Each structure stands twice: as C-alpha cells, then as structure tokens.
C-alpha cells in the first residue's frame, strides 16, 4: 500500500542470472539466498521460495490456521495459478547434464519443482491442508480464474473454504520468449501511453483465503461479487483487435454480480503496455463502461507478473476499496488519444465500493473479477 501511495516502482534494469537482454524487470532480491522450510526441501526452487515468502506476509498463515481449526484440513481447497512454476530449476539443470549419460543432476526434483502442480502441492503441505487442490495454468489469467474455481467448489459443497492465489517467478523461458515476440520493452513499461512499446517482466505472488459469504463476520466485509470468463478464439499470442473476449468477460462478471457498469468505481486494467493489449482492452472497456469509470494499470509498479498478475491485481483492487484509493499509473507520460476511457496517471482518492479487475492471457483466455462491498 505504501509503495502504491509513494509511487515507488519495483522495476529495475535487468540483472538476473546471465540474461543478456536490455530491459527492466521486477525482481525479489532476497530469493537467491532464501530457502523453503527444511521439511519441504524437495520443493526448493525460486517459485516455491517466493510462495513461502508471500505466505509469511500479513498474518496469512495465522488466518489459514484459524480456518483449518474451524473447518478441518480436508475441507479447505487449494487452487493456485502459475504460468511457469519452477521451470527455472530445469533451465539451470540443462546446463549441468551428465557429460557421459546426458542425465539431469541427481538433486533435480521434477514433481516438486518443474511440474505445474508443484505450487499447489507446496502450498498444501506448507499450510497443512488436505482438501481438493490443483493448479490452473492458463498463462496470464491463471490466478484470476482460481476465484471462480473456489466459488464453484464451495457452492457444490466440495469444500467450505479455499486458499487461492498464484506465484510466478523470473525464468529465462519467459524473458527470451516474450523477447522473441517483440513484446519486451527496453524501458520500464508504460501502460496505455501513446509511446508504449512492451512489457516489463516481473515476479511476485499473492494469496487469498476465501469462505462462504454467509460466514462473513467483519462489519463491512470484502466480497467476491462476480467472475466472468471467456475465450477470444482469435490468436495464440495476440488479443482480439476489437476486444471481443474482453467485453464478454467483463459483461459476464457484471451479470454474475447482478450489477450495471455504473456500479463500478474503479477498474484495474490488464494493461500490459503492449501496443495490442492496451488498444484491444481499451476498446472493450470503452464499449462496456464508456469513459466514466476511473481506470489504471498498476503494471508500472509491479511489471507483468504473468500467472500471478490476477491475484496481485485483485489484491491491489481490494486495497483500493479498503483505503478509498485510486491507483494511477507510474511511468505513463502521454496517454494514447485513440483510447476513450478515464485512464488515471496520478493517484487519487474517493469512495470506492466495487472494483473490477481484468486478466487476459495467451491462448485468448480472459477473466474479469468484481470485488468489493455489498450495496
């Protein structure tokens, strides 16, 4: 929250492993020396280190422990989003193959690091939860979609509460991969700027403990009001130019929440700062909301957290509600005049009751969340 208010961006010139790209990244510095809990050492990799670091923030372990006592370990689901899981471990292991046999190093743990499920397995073990668990890996919408999974699982009676979230950590696959598509900026990313020229890759994570609305005890509790999911059916790595899938996702989220466009007080955009994403999303937001709802992308602070973008931006959106705070957009200088929405560069304040958060991914996978207070 303080970093948001002080407009302190996490983007720095890229110094990660031996990556030779001229770009900016958001890197969690302490991960290099950090280790996961000793009894879970098979899971030790950059992604699970970051997961543990996130779990240890803000009294989350204590809150989960209380839920475990209330519901029982088997009644709490664990639904996680990640795009690349612990693939860095494999990338590094391929540099140290046995010269005779070509085998991976003996201390390489496939299931606990590279496999996509690794994150949900680690979180389940770390928190001592034994309910249903899986990983959603739908690129950059992954950890937004887990809100829908938790909602359905509770509604169907499969579990009573869920730990949802997502973690993605820096690796060579994404840095060189996005670079090959010409989508990586040489500068700190500038969402919705007329001169925007690509993303800054970041690493991060977040977790949310969610239970049925009927269990809410706080005076003015935070609700997941609606989720909308859709598919572009257009292209693997380029969004639909008219924002067709984005429109569907936002409209379905509003319908699920039983709300109208003017019930939304702030939109946290996907806003990756690529030419195509911001143009397509901007058109979609203008179509559904017009130019009356304050919008911004917070990726100038965080970089693009990929599979963790959904959860971290949902958390930022909930902070906006809690603090009556409208995040602006760091690094954005000159707005793109072709995009007709109320995009905010400067931070602001106001009464924020309900927010919408967008997450869109490769493969045309879209998810919009509506979070906030009940009327």
């Amino acid at each position, binding site marked *: 929250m303080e970093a948001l208010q002080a407009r302190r961006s996490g983007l720095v010139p890229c110094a990660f492993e031996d990556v030779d790209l001229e770009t900016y990244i958001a890197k969690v510095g302490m991960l290099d020396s950090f280790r996961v809990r000793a009894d879970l050492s098979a899971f030790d990799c950059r992604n699970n280190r970051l997961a543990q670091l996130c779990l240890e923030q803000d009294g989350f372990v204590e809150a989960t422990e209380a839920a475990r006592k209330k519901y029982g370990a088997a009644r709490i689901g664990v639904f996680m989003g990640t795009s690349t899981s612990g693939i860095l471990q494999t990338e590094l292991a391929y540099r140290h193959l046995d010269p005779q046999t070509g085998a991976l190093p003996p201390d390489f743990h496939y299931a606990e690091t590279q496999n996509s499920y690794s994150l949900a397995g680690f979180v389940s073990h770390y928190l001592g939860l034994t309910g249903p668990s899986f990983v959603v*890996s739908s690129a950059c919408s992954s950890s937004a979609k887990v809100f829908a999974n938790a909602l359905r699982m509770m509604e169907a009676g499969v579990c009573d509460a869920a730990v949802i979230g997502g973690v993605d950590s820096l690796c060579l696959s994404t840095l060189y991969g996005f670079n090959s598509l010409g989508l990586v900026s040489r500068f700190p990313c500038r969402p919705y700027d007329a001169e925007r020229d690509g993303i800054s890759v970041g690493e991060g994570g977040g977790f949310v403990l969610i239970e049925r609305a009927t269990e809410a005890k706080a005076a003015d509790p935070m609700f997941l009001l609606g989720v909308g999911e859709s598919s572009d059916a257009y292209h693997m790595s380029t969004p639909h130019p008219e924002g067709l899938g984005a429109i569907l996702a936002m409209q379905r989220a509003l319908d699920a929440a039983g709300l109208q466009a003017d019930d939304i007080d702030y939109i946290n955009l996907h806003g990756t700062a690529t030419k195509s994403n911001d143009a397509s999303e901007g058109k979609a937001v203008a179509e559904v909301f017009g130019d009356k709802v304050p919008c911004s992308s917070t990726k100038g602070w965080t970089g693009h957290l990929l599979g963790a973008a959904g959860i971290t931006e949902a958390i930022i959106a909930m902070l906006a509600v809690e603090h009556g705070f409208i995040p602006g957009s760091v690094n954005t200088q000159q707005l793109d005049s072709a995009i007709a929405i109320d995009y905010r560069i400067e931070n602001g304040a106001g009464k924020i009751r309900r927010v919408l958060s967008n997450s869109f991914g490769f493969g045309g996978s879209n998810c919009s969340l509506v979070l906030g207070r009940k009327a």
Partner: protein
Amino acid sequence: MMRLYVEGIGLLGPGLDGWSASRAVLAGEAAYVAAPTNLRASDMLPAAERRRAGVPIKLALTVGQEAFLQAGRETKSASTVFTSSGGDNDNVHAINGILATAPREVSPTRFHNSVHNAAAGYWCIAAGSHEPSTSLCAYDASFVAGLLESATQVVVDDAVVALVAYDHSYPEPLHSVRPITTSFGAALILTKQQSAKSLAAIEVEFRSGKAPETTMKDEALEDLRKGVPAARVLPLLAALAAAKTTQISIDYLEGNHLDIRVTPC
C-alpha cells in the same frame, strides 16, 4: 455428490483408436491389441496452425472432436476444461536445450506453444468457442482434478462442459525423472440434464482419505493406466463401455480419492 450425464466420449491411445472402435475392448468383449497411438492433426485447424501443432494439440483436438460428434453438439457451444500433467513436453525439452546454449533464440511459435493452455487456445480457435475455458494440472491426478472441476461447472453453472485430458512422453533426460510411457487422450461431454444422447449418469464425490483404486483387468491396459496420468480415466471408460451400474474409485492427491458411480441411461 454431484450428478451429471455423459453425452459423448472421445478416445485416442495406443491400440485405442477412437471410442467407437475401442468400446468392445474396454468392455472386455474383445482382446486388446497394442499399437502405436495413431496421432494426426485435426482437420478442424487451419493449415498454418496444423503445421504448428505438437502432440498435445493433436491428441486434444482429435478426442474433443470425436466426443462432440457423438453428442451431436456444435463445438462452439460448450465450456472446456483441459487437463494434463505436462503440456507440450517435446517443446519444453527443446526450449530448455536452446536456453542452455548460445544464442538463446526461442522462436515465437515455440514460446506460445509452451504455455500449459496451448491446446485450449488452439481448440477455442478451431471450435470458434468464446465460452469459458480452463487448463489444469494436478500431476498424476490431473484427470480427476479435471473431472471434479467439470462437475462443479455442470452442477453450479449449469454449463455443458467438454473435459479433455491428454499426456505424452518427455524426451530424455526428462523421461528418466518423469516416465510417461506413451501418448493418450480422452474427452467427455458432460451435461446437467439428461438428453436423448445421454449414455450414462455419473455421480462424482470427492472423499478425503485413501481407498482401493479401481484397476484394469487386462494387464496391458493396466500398464497403460499406470503409465500415463491422463489414462487414469480408463476405469471410468471401462465402466461406460460395460453399460451396467458400476462403482469405481480413482486416486486424487494428498491422500484423497474420487468415488464415481456410473449408471447407464
């Protein structure tokens, strides 16, 4: 307990070339004859995408298409749940090799095919589907995780869901640390309401704790079930093929399992 109906089935595995051709084998009425998985690129894809399709996309589109044909539904009309332990394992191996040596030139196609939801992305393009689609992984329990998620979508959202499970082998050196024996895919069209096309009702329940897992009677099919995560679907397919009321159990992770009761329509 969640109750849903199976309206269509797709299958592609070694010696199992389509549901229709494999039903008698799975019911124990005909002998299983092993043969390499008959992988082919689906004609649903435009030519350019067909050339870029790796094994998972071939598996997923072939079984998905067969299941929709049987159900008599349009491909664009259903939500989709894709589930796989690995994704495109050949591509992951190739990218790791490229990144381990200079110059690190990962092609755009290699990169966008490396996302776990590549098969889902290609499917939605080929099927013209704007419906919700998700892509899951739960290691060896990826199939039952997909079934559980699909069941909640059917029951809670009243969605028609196409569940598509697929897995294939890694090349070495990853094969040694994650031995998946062959290429295998299966698809189920699941609905909340019974229709003229419904083949069976299935009742699905997530249970904590261990239970004896249902195995395959035929030794080679049992090896297949154990050898490929997606092939954990085989006991369910055998129950559907037998067309009689059957109770089965499939292991989940963290010491849990799914109880499934199959009742023919």
